[in-house]
Structures are given as structure tokens and as C-alpha cells.
């Protein structure tokens, strides 16, 4: 879709006029409105996919609830009533955990009391906090997809960047925040970037497949972190706990509500949005981005056009790793302020799903990240209140990916019309051919 838009914007004026003329003859909507309508229509499938996945999730909850079976034993009416109350309770907890209770937010806003407002919007801030590292990691994988590379190593790059960031955060002292914070962020980006560039370099030099090598680099990174943060490891705090020392306050990402410790949302989110715009600009407005996308679409054509495929592969992987690294940096500098041994969050693996869901477009990734952040925040609340295991999110996430990747299923379910021209994005090439 985006490639098409880019091509369209390059159409010269006379041709565009001709196209408008043709539109009029065929009785189609003019170009601009057609595009908006196309954009809206492209949101239908993701929306229905999410709704369908949530419905199936509800069915899973009902079918695994023993009280529902017991109620059905007393009568169908009772069973249905029990089932609907189970779903309402679970999904009520889910949505209030993800977005907050709207009634409460509105009353709090009208009351004008600071504490009440903060308490009411707390779930929303948690969603944003969780989606911040998701945005970076999702952008990392999406950038790789655009360049035809499948970066499964976001998780490993995340770990390495975490180590580097936290080291710069606690070992460098006496710097003002305005230097220390960017330095720590940069260190994370460089650490992740190097970790990502190694598989890129191996691919460019020897043709070794990046999927295999990023997976292997993941294991190296996990064990490296385990070694460094072991209770007696070189980066341990030294009090017998497998965690790193606290970072200097000068490296903290500023909080939105510095006096409210429980609200953990911070400026990392703004940074994430800015980086998303930056990635969009890089991909669609610069020569390098054009090269990345060309290599991703067809490396042979790229070579024929005089681009250095090897160089582009290395740069793409390095940038991808740097983005994955920033994911860890913002998490440490903004939320944790130290690095635990069990740092694994699954962000790097969920990021693959995010990039797919966002169709590898930076803004799509941001939306998908907000969705996943909401799913995670909501699921935690759901587990606490309705005792529905938090793992339901994985089921819902998996279903969302299936439905978005196979829109045919959704179209059949909802009797939607076939699209006129398919503009599916080619995400990755297999490693059998090519």
C-alpha cells in the first residue's frame, strides 16, 4: 500500500490530470477522496480481526469456567445468564484495566481533584507505559521487514542494550542529566545496533541466513546477561541479589507525574512517537529508506539499479538492532532504573507480531503497540479481578495475527466484498529460494 502511495505521489502532473479525467469517465470518486475511503476500508479488516479475536477469547473464558457448566445444569436460562455475567466481569475488568473506567474518568475530570483524576486515568497511563517499549521493538522488526530481513533477534538486542544502558547509567557519575540521559540512550542504541549488525554482516559477507543468526545471538545475549547479573557477576549489585546497581538519577527519563510514583508513564513515550516519525521519514523520504525498501522488495533489482545490497543489509540490521536497543533503554531509564537478571519481557518476540499487525508501517506499529499495551494492562487487571489467566492475551494476540494475515477468513465470516486490487505487503522472503 505504502509503496503504491509513494509511486502515486511521483506521478507527474499531466498524468495525474489524465487519471482524474479517467476517474470522471468511469464515474469513480476523485483521487483524494478515493484514497481516504481506501484508508478507511483498510482499517475494517484489522478492526473486525480484533473484535473476532476478543469474541473467541470470551468463548474460551466461558467454556473454561466451571460455574457456567454448573449453571447450565440448573437450566439453560440460568446458564446463559451466568455465562454473560462471567464475560461481563472478565471483560469489564479487562477494559477498565486497559483504558480506565470512563464514568470514573468523567466524574473525576468534573470534580477537578488532582488525585482523583490521576487515579482514574492510571490504567490508561499503564497501557501507554507498556506500549512504549513495544513501539521501539515493533519498529525494529518492521524496519527489518521493509528491508526484507527477518529480525528475530530483537529480544537479544534488547538484553545487550539493557546491559550497556544500565552500565552507563550507574557507572558514569557526575554528569548533568542533559548529557547523561542522551548518553545512556545512545549507549543502548549502539549496543543493540552492534548486536543487530553482526547477523547483518554475516548475511552480507557469507550469505548466512539472518533468522538463524539472530536466534543464536539471542541465546548469547541471554546467557551474557545471566553471567553479568549473576549474584556474584561483574555487574551485580553486590548484596547477593542478581540485579544491577541503581542508575544515577541524572540518567532518569523525566516522568509526567514526578510526585506520583505509582504512575510510571514517562517521556519515553514521546521519544517513541518521535522515533516512529523518524523511521517513517527515513523509510519514505530519504535515499537510504528507498534503498532499504528496494532491497526488501527485490534484491536483484536493487543490485541492477546500482545499490549495494550488502551495505543496505548491514545498515538495516544495525538500525533495527538500535531500535530494539532503545526499547530496553527506555524501559530501564524510564521505569525500572536498574536491570534485573530475569529481564525477559517477551517484548522482542511480541514485536514480530506488532510489525505484522502494523503491516510494517511505522504508524501502524504505533497503533498495534498501543493495542498490545492495552491487552497486557487489561489482562493483568482481568487476572486480578476475574481470575482469568493472563495468558488469554497470547491467545487473543495469536488470533489477531491469524485474522489479519488471512483476511479471507474475516471476509467469509462477515460476508465482506473482495477487494478490487489486492495490495498486500510482502513481508519477508523465505530462505529456500531467493
Amino acid at each position, binding site marked *: 500500500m505504502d509503496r503504491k502511495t509513494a509511486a502515486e505521489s511521483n506521478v507527474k502532473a499531466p498524468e495525474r490530470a489524465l487519471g482524474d479525467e479517467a476517474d470522471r469517465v468511469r464515474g469513480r470518486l476523485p483521487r483524494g477522496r478515493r484514497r481516504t475511503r481506501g484508508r478507511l476500508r483498510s482499517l475494517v479488516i484489522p478492526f473486525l480481526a480484533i473484535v473476532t479475536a476478543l469474541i473467541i477469547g470470551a468463548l474460551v473464558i466461558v467454556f473454561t469456567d466451571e460455574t457456567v457448566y454448573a449453571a447450565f445444569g440448573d437450566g439453560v436460562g440460568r446458564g446463559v445468564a451466568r455465562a454473560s455475567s462471567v464475560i461481563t466481569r472478565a471483560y469489564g475488568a479487562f477494559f477498565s484495566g486497559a483504558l480506565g473506567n470512563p464514568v470514573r474518568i468523567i466524574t473525576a475530570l468534573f470534580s477537578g481533584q488532582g488525585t482523583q483524576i490521576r487515579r482514574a486515568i492510571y490504567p490508561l497511563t499503564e497501557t501507554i507505559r507498556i506500549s512504549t517499549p513495544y513501539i521501539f521493538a515493533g519498529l525494529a522488526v518492521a524496519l527489518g521487514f521493509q528491508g526484507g530481513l527477518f529480525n528475530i533477534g530483537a529480544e537479544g538486542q534488547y538484553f545487550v542494550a539493557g546491559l550497556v544502558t544500565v552500565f552507563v547509567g550507574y557507572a558514569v557519575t557526575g554528569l548533568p542529566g542533559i548529557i547523561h540521559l542522551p548518553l545512556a540512550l545512545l549507549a543502548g542504541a549502539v549496543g543493540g545496533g552492534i548486536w543487530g549488525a553482526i547477523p547483518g554482516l554475516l548475511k552480507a559477507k557469507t550469505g548466512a541466513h539472518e533468522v538463524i543468526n539472530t536466534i543464536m545471538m539471542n541465546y548469547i545475549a541471554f546467557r551474557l546477561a545471566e553471567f553479568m547479573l549473576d549474584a556474584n557477576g561483574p555487574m551485580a549489585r553486590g548484596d547477593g541479589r542478581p540485579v544491577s546497581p541503581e542508575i544515577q538519577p541524572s540518567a532518569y527519563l523525566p516522568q509526567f507525574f514526578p510526585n506520583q510514583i505509582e504512575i510510571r508513564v514517562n517521556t519515553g513515550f514521546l521519544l517513541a512517537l518521535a522515533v516512529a516519525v523518524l523511521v517513517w521519514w527515513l523509510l519514505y523520504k530519504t535515499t537510504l529508506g528507498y534503498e532499504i525498501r528496494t532491497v526488501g522488495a527485490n534484491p536483484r533489482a536493487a543490485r541492477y539499479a546500482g545499490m549495494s545490497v550488502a551495505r543496505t543489509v548491514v545498515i538495516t540490521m544495525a538500525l533495527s538492532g538500535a531500535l530494539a536497543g532503545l526499547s530496553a533503554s527506555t524501559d530501564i531509564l524510564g521505569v525500572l532504573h536498574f536491570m534485573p537478571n530475569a529481564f525477559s519481557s517477551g517484548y522482542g518476540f511480541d514485536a514480530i507480531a506488532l510489525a505484522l499487525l502494523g503491516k510494517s508501517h511505522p504508524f501502524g506499529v504505533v497503533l498495534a503497540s498501543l493495542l498490545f499495551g492495552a491487552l497486557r494492562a487489561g489482562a493483568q487487571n482481568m487476572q486480578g479481578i476475574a481470575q482469568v*489467566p493472563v495468558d488469554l492475551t497470547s491467545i487473543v494476540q*495469536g488470533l489477531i495475527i*491469524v485474522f489479519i494475515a488471512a483476511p479471507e477468513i474475516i471476509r467469509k465470516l462477515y460476508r465482506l466484498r473482495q477487494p478490487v486490487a489486492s495490495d498486500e505487503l510482502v513481508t519477508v522472503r523465505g530462505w529456500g529460494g531467493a
Partner: protein
Amino acid sequence: MTLIRTSAKAQRRARTLGIVFLVFAVAIVLLFVPGANAGQTTTFGFNEARGQAFVIPDLVFPTQAGLYLMATLVAFAGAYQLAHGFKRQNVVLGIVAGVSVLAFLTWAARGQSMNLTGMLKSSLLRAIPIILAALSGIMCERCGIVNIGIEGMMLMGAFMAALIGSVAGSVWVGTLGAMLGGALMSGLLAVLAIKYKVNQVVAGTAINILATGVTSYFSSRYLQKYQALNTPPTFAAIPLPGLSRIPIIGPALFDHTLLVYLTFILVIVIQLMLFYTRWGLRTRAVGEHPTPLV
């Protein structure tokens, strides 16, 4: 021209290999030797408790001297490679890698004893799931399918094995359940990839996430609550008569459960099926290039 370039390339590879060997030698001296005290010895045991044909004496040697010996060996290999060059480079590379692993074990077992036979045995046991998963990967790769979802299929198989094995109280029904669970996930991949034309990597990723979700959801809903559902019977080891009494390789290879032996057989069967049957030829042909066959 090409000839010269290949030989130049081979020369460079030979030189790199020699330098790598020397680096290995230096690494042994720098990494492992400082860890060992002067008087320490390393003991390698080779005997398993169960009835063995004869007993092999334990190998006891001073740790430091052993490490220096190994480092010298590796350094010599590197020097010879740089000066003359081995004919069979890959064999030498294997030997050097083996000696380096041995050096690591020597360092790890300093001041104590380590049973090498037991280590071999547990290495094999841990390799079995990887072998089976790799066989799955081979079948997929040979017919041109990128199967990212093997992890998810294994998870589902493990879950089904635990659940169905516990309910039925039979190892074989449990094994069938595991196969069914894997096949279900695999069928999902096939439907998504073939019917709905989903990119195989995407479908595989979805399968991994789905399998993680489904197995952990149901295990926290049921398996943790009702422990009886998560107590499957396990295969008992069947030592092969005669063979299992051979020292070292007996316990390592021939004192295992039926599943391990089945895995050995499967490796051979799949090799034969892929390369000596019509089905195998067709599978590989599809993997090479599907269009001419349609």
C-alpha cells in the same frame, strides 16, 4: 583467473584457520589455567554403576599440566597449519574443537571428579527433543516450507502428552496425544499457508504465540488446579541386553527409553524415505521448485 582466485581464497581460509587455532591455544592458557591451583588434579570417571562388562580406571591428572598440554597441542596444530597446512583441515578443526572442549571440562572439574560417561548420556538425552524437532524441520525444509512454528508444535505436543497421558494412564496414549497435538498445530499452519495464502513465517509466528497462549492458559486453569491431570506416566529405561554392558558407549547409547531408540530409527527411516522413495523424490522436487510439477 578463476583458478588463481579460488586458490587465493583457499589460502586465506587456511591462514585464518591457523590463526583461529592459535587463538584457541591462547584462550585455553588465559581463561582456564589461572583458575587452577598448582596442586589441583582433575579426575575423569568413565564407569556407570550398573553392571558393566569391565571397569575402566579413572583418569587422574594434574589440572594445570593437563591444560598446558592441551594448549600446546592446539598451538602446535595452529603453527603447523600456518607453516605447512594440513591436508584434512576440517578433521583437524574438529580435533582442535574437541580438545578445547576437553580443556574446558578439565578446568570445570578442577579439584573434583567428573563422570564423562554420565555426561555423554545426559547430553544424548537432552539432544533427543532437538533431534526430533530437527527431523520435523528437515521434512519442512525439503518440501520448501519455512516452519517457524516448530516451537509451538512442540509446546502443544508436550501439553497434550501431559494431559492425555495422565488421563489415560498410558505412556503410549500420551505419546499419541503429543503427536496429535503437534499435528493439529501443523495442520493449522498448512490451512493458513495453503488455503489462505498466509506467508509461512507469519503463520508460524502466529502458531507459536497461539500455542503459548493456549497451553499456558489451560495449564493455569486446569493442570495447576487438578494435579492429577499433570502426572503422566513416563517411559522406563530399557537397557539393551549385552550392548548396554559395554563400558562408556553402553550406558551412553544403549541404556535408554524406547523413545530414544525410536528416534535413532526415525533418523534412518526419514533419510531413506526422503532419498530412496518416490514420495521423497516428489517432496524434494516440490521443495526445489513447485511450479513445474503443477
